[in-house]
């Protein structure tokens, strides 16, 4: 470098020479392809000015121009035109500064020296907010230039950080998943679950684009001086404004590092037709590639070949153990009190753990902070009601939602005494509270309760309940560091009461209690690194079953399984590292530790023998609080994204996870009475690893998103059960399960158009899920230890979700889904053995039920759009299973008249019409 330009020194030098001003010189020269260095030499020779410049910035310039007595300013203007270079000419000291982008000021502002002392005092703080105490609340000042940070007369090159919250301008509600970005150089961020964003940008002028689903996109002109805070507000998309195009997350598909993340806004969820017209979070998840279910009436879903218990379902950080009502016909999550859901299928952030397959994060919606609003929906079987509003205006709000069913009237209509004497009902309640203590501290509270109850005939009563509560304190320590402290409680319990025979009347019950505590931090180290770290602890207490006499006459022998408890703690650190504009890495590590705690009696088994009653050696009693067994290990969460072009990227990820709590189910579909079991000395934790690779391309300016992802997954110590296993009220359940290894692989293809009159997505998934018993001590191995398909192995799956908006008031939605029939085990004959007739079964899951196909159509009719009317209403009318196909759910075989006969059961045997009325006030 020939001459180093040091601004500060030059500036100081200037001060001393201020008195002797000179006229700018003139230049006469003819340049033909001259280098900048030659130009400088000529200028210095003719004018006596000295030029400071950076050769790196100018070495590509070629100058072709001729000047005849041209003033130096004109010369420089002409030469530097369209080069991005600026010049500053100081006639006093006869120097010229050539700089890139920012013009250098050759004089200091008034009062520079007097301010200096106070400014350097301020500089000791990590972040200086020029607007402190006077927040940049943007309402109608789009045309204004917003200044962020400590305003300085000159801007030193470098990066600065903007953070803030994005809210709905009308309701004050925080907006999740809104994007904030600039195009040159491309950089962006999205708001988190609490509406916060942080974005690192080069200092200087930018056009900041803010977008969110269903909101009007906005652009703000900003000048970024240094780190600062900028809170933004967006307005609801009003449909009349045709010109506004929703562009939410258009680039996210290509640019975000994480893979296999499916985000669904509640507005998108509402568009998908469902069985009773009730918007259903979990049903919509099933339309996404890689998410499957064994059938209509099952509570769970399977992600990329994982089993149902391998999904962590979080409602504001609290685990939901049974997310379904009425055997899975409805999801237990009220769509009116949630903001949206995120499903992580492959890159699972390091802050989550404890399940192998996926994390389904359900974000609660916070109430309107400005005015009281309500919503109600009435359907054939269910209705719901929500009310929300401020407690302290602009600072705290509540939202209270409830749903209930009145399905019994349908049962009464049936011409069958058994059905008429049966009843089924459910309800759920949600309360979400939020309070902003101050600019930096906010509190969030959610409480959730759901209950299902069924009475079969009039003597057997089944019921289950979820109870959850979460309290979260979020604190912004500085613009670089924010923390979240959460404590939550989850309880799931079920019971069966039967009093058909007074002598044998019983009450069976089961429950899980879980208490969580976690602290998570986000630290923005610098422009390239964002760190997330924290720790979490979960205490589990399970009552694995009690079987008690019911009523005075009952002679049932009371049997209570010993409770079990465990502690799961984890530490995590994740770095989001922008290596370059094109390459971003997410490097995460989680270390989990699990302690199985006393008091508990643990059975030990003879080694090398199949675990069974016959190989039990001893029972050891452990004292309360003692660590019976510890398991621990690291979990890797690595992903990378490389931008091949602004609209095309390739991503890869490697993940490993550990799971310490297992659901044991030996029925095909998950039923509410499946039991959960903690890892103990006999049952090892499950361990899963997944690698995935994907290609993402956006077309038509992000209007059409396409993605192709492939994955391979390995699961160790998955628990399968022995033939004829009895899981309920079993005192030695470890003898009934066998460690199994699993592998799953597949490819998922998706085309999505998220806006426009016609929108929706088409997905195709090819996937296989195979299991193999690899426990040397298992005794008889299922299918002779060969690989066999899991219950939810459905290789081909095609789903089409489409919406077409005819006008602002009418739209039609279509849901079309096809999949291969799931595997089943069939009896293939009978024989005589050991003195009795016995049924011969084929290999497990070696046959399949017929393929599945279903089409649903819904018509949405909005009331008029006059903004000033008191209530707004809408209708949803539709049909579920429009083709009336009898999709087989299960098959069973019964002995009738000496012969064994087969039956197949379809949950929905015909076309099911539905109607729903919604009102908003």
């Amino acid at each position, binding site marked *: 470098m020939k001459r180093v330009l040091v601004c500060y020194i030059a500036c100081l030098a200037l001060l001393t020479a201020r008195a002797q001003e000179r006229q700018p010189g003139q230049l006469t020269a003819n340049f033909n392809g001259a280098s900048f260095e030659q130009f400088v030499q000529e200028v210095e020779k003719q004018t006596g000015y000295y030029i400071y410049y950076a050769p790196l910035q100018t070495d590509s310039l070629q100058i072709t121009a001729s000047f005849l007595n041209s003033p130096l300013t004109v010369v420089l203007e002409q030469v530097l035109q369209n080069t991005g270079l600026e010049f500053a000419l100081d006639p006093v000291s006869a120097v010229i500064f050539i700089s890139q982008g920012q013009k250098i000021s050759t004089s200091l502002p008034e009062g520079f020296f007097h301010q200096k002392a106070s400014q350097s005092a301020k500089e000791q703080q990590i972040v200086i907010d020029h607007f402190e105490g006077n927040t940049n609340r943007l309402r109608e000042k789009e045309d204004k230039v917003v200044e962020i940070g400590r305003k300085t007369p000159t801007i030193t090159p470098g990066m600065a950080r903007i953070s803030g919250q994005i809210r709905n301008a009308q309701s004050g509600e925080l907006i999740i998943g809104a994007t904030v970005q600039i195009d040159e150089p491309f950089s962006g961020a999205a708001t988190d679950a609490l509406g916060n964003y942080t974005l690192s940008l080069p200092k200087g002028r930018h056009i900041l684009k803010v977008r969110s689903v269903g909101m009007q996109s906005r652009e703000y002109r900003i000048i970024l001086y240094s780190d600062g805070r900028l809170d933004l507000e967006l307005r609801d998309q009003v449909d009349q404004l045709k010109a506004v195009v929703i562009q939410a997350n258009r680039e996210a598909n290509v640019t975000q590092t994480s893979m296999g993340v499916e985000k669904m806004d509640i507005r998108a969820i509402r568009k998908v037709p469902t069985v009773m017209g009730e918007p259903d979070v979990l049903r919509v998840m099933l339309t996404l590639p890689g998410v499957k279910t064994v059938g209509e009436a099952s509570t769970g879903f399977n992600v990329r070949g994982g089993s149902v218990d391998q999904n962590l379902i979080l409602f504001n950080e609290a685990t939901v153990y049974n997310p379904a009502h009425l055997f899975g016909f409805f999801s237990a999550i009220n769509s009116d009190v949630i903001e949206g859901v995120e499903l992580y299928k492959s890159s699972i952030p390091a802050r989550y753990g404890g399940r192998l397959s996926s994390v389904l994060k359900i974000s609660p919606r916070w109430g309107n902070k400005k005015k009281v609003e309500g919503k109600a929906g009435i359907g054939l079987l269910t209705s719901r009601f929500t009310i929300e509003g401020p407690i302290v205006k602009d600072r705290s709000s509540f939202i209270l939602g409830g749903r209930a069913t009145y399905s019994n009237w349908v049962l009464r209509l049936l011409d069958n005494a058994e059905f008429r004497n*049966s009843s089924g009902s459910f309800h759920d309640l949600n309360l979400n509270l939020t309070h902003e203590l101050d600019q930096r501290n906010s509190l969030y509270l959610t409480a959730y309760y759901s209950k299902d109850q069924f009475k079969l005939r009039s003597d057997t009563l089944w019921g289950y309940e979820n109870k959850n509560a979460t309290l979260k304190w979020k604190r912004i320590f500085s613009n670089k560091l924010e923390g979240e402290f959460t404590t939550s409680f989850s309880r799931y319990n079920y019971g069966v009461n039967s009093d058909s025979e007074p002598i044998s009347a019983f009450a069976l019950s089961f429950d899980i209690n879980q208490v969580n505590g976690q602290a998570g931090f986000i630290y923005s180290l610098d422009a390239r690194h964002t760190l997330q770290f924290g720790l979490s602890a979960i205490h589990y207490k399970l009552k694995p079953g009690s079987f008690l006499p019911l009523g005075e006459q009952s002679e049932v022998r009371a049997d209570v399984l010993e409770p079990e408890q465990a502690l799961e703690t984890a530490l995590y650190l994740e770095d989001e590292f922008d290596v370059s504009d094109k390459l971003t890495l997410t490097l995460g590590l989680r270390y989990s530790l699990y302690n199985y705690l006393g008091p508990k009696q643990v059975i030990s088994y003879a080694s090398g023998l199949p675990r069974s009653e016959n190989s039990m050696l001893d029972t050891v009693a452990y004292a309360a609080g003692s660590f019976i067994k510890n398991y621990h290990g690291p979990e890797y969460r690595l992903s990378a994204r490389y931008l091949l072009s602004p609209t095309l990227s390739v991503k890869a990820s490697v993940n490993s996870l550990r799971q310490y709590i297992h659901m044991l189910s030996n029925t095909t579909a998950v039923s509410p009475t499946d039991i959960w079991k903690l890892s103990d000395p006999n049952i090892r934790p499950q361990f899963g690893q997944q690698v995935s690779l994907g290609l993402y391309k956006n077309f038509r300016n992000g209007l059409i998103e396409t993605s192709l992802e492939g994955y391979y997954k390995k699961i160790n110590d998955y628990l399968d059960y022995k033939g004829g296993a009895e899981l309920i009220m079993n005192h030695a359940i470890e003898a009934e399960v066998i460690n199994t290894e699993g592998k799953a692989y597949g490819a998922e293809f998706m085309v999505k158009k998220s806006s426009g009159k016609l929108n929706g997505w088409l997905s195709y998934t090819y996937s296989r899920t195979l299991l193999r018993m690899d426990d040397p001590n298992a005794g008889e191995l299922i299918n002779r230890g060969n690989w066999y398909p899991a219950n939810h192995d459905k290789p081909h799956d095609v789903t089409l979700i489409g919406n077409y908006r005819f006008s602002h008031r009418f739209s039609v939605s279509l849901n079309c889904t096809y999949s291969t029939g799931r595997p089943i085990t069939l009896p293939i004959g009978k024989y005589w053995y050991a003195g009795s007739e016995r049924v011969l079964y084929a290999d497990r899951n070696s046959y399949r039920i017929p393929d599945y196909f279903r089409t649903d159509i819904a018509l949405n009719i909005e009331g008029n759009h006059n903004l000033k009317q008191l209530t707004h209403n809408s209708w949803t009318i539709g049909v579920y299973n429009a083709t009336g196909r009898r999709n087989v759910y299960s098959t069973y075989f019964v002995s009738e008249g000496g012969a064994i006969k087969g039956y197949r059961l379809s949950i929905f045997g015909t076309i099911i019409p539905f109607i729903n009325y919604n009102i908003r006030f």
Partner: protein
Amino acid sequence: MKKWWNFAALIGASLSVSSCVDPYEPEIITEAQNYLVIEGALNSGAPTELRLSRTVGLADPNTYSPERFAVVSVESDGGNMIYLTGNANGIYTAPDLDLNPAHRYRLRIQTNTSGEYLSDYVTLKPTPPIDSIHWVQTAEGVQLYVNTHDPLGSTRYYRWEYEETWEVRAPYRAEFEYVDRQIVPRDPIPPRLCWAQENSAQVLIGSSARLVRDVIFNQPLVFIPHTSWKLSQRYSLLAKQYALSREAFEYYQQLKKNTEETGSFFDPLPVELRGNIYSVNNAQEPVIGYFDAGSVQEQRIYIDGSEVNPWGYRVRCDIVMVSPDSLDFYFGGGTLQPLYKDDEGNYYGSENIDCYDCSAKANPVKPDFWE
């Protein structure tokens, strides 16, 4: 879990108000599966009996389809070969064999449809004698138990079968019968003393693998409910004890879970079962059964009705007195049978055949062993 299905169907039905259960006959079910089924063990020092049959379709009214005309042989790794002779019931037998315990044995079967089957080699596992069979009476009935032990500690896995035999007595002599509107002496008089028989129909297995000593104590064999006819006179149980290899034990355990421990409220899904006999021609062909070799130990006990007094079973006879002028009215229908008469010429009859003829339900021939 059928109740869940039912309830799920119920919900479905309530939503659609239509029936959702259809007959289901997948192709594989209508297809006649006739895999070979082999039951029995090679015995040293006692007759060997193997039962060969075929599986039948689920809809088939027959449950037992014997495999006839097969060539069944046992070969040792010492080169010896023993042929078994079969009968029409598919039972292949060999007389008392004196087998060399140093050798291993396997089963070879050639069916008349030229299928060839071969078992794994198995070793002879001697069975220790039964220590005792004893019983305990409670208000519900009588439970019989078996006790055994192996001082060498090498048996560990056991299987039992039993044969029950009991005396059946008709309380009345039927001296008369009503023929052609006449009371005539009955000849021959129907048998009043018979014996009924029943074999175990459950897989009975036990293990001492978790104990220090190889002892089986109070292994339940059979339970006789208080109201059963088996103990109304005299009862005998012959218990047969077989030592099992660990593999055979696991096979029986699985068989038991698969076919006996289902049908309850929470039905587990079944698993497929594989034994140690394979098709030579087609390795994929399922063959049912487990071939094991050893010896059998037997013990018989008797329980007399007087030992379990008061027993809860009695033949209900409801004796009807018929005066001589109403004979045709009562006996003409054929359901009421005259049994005896009194000095005044009244006849006494019963409608219950068990009151005078035990051969209706049992065999009047006294078994050879009966004491």
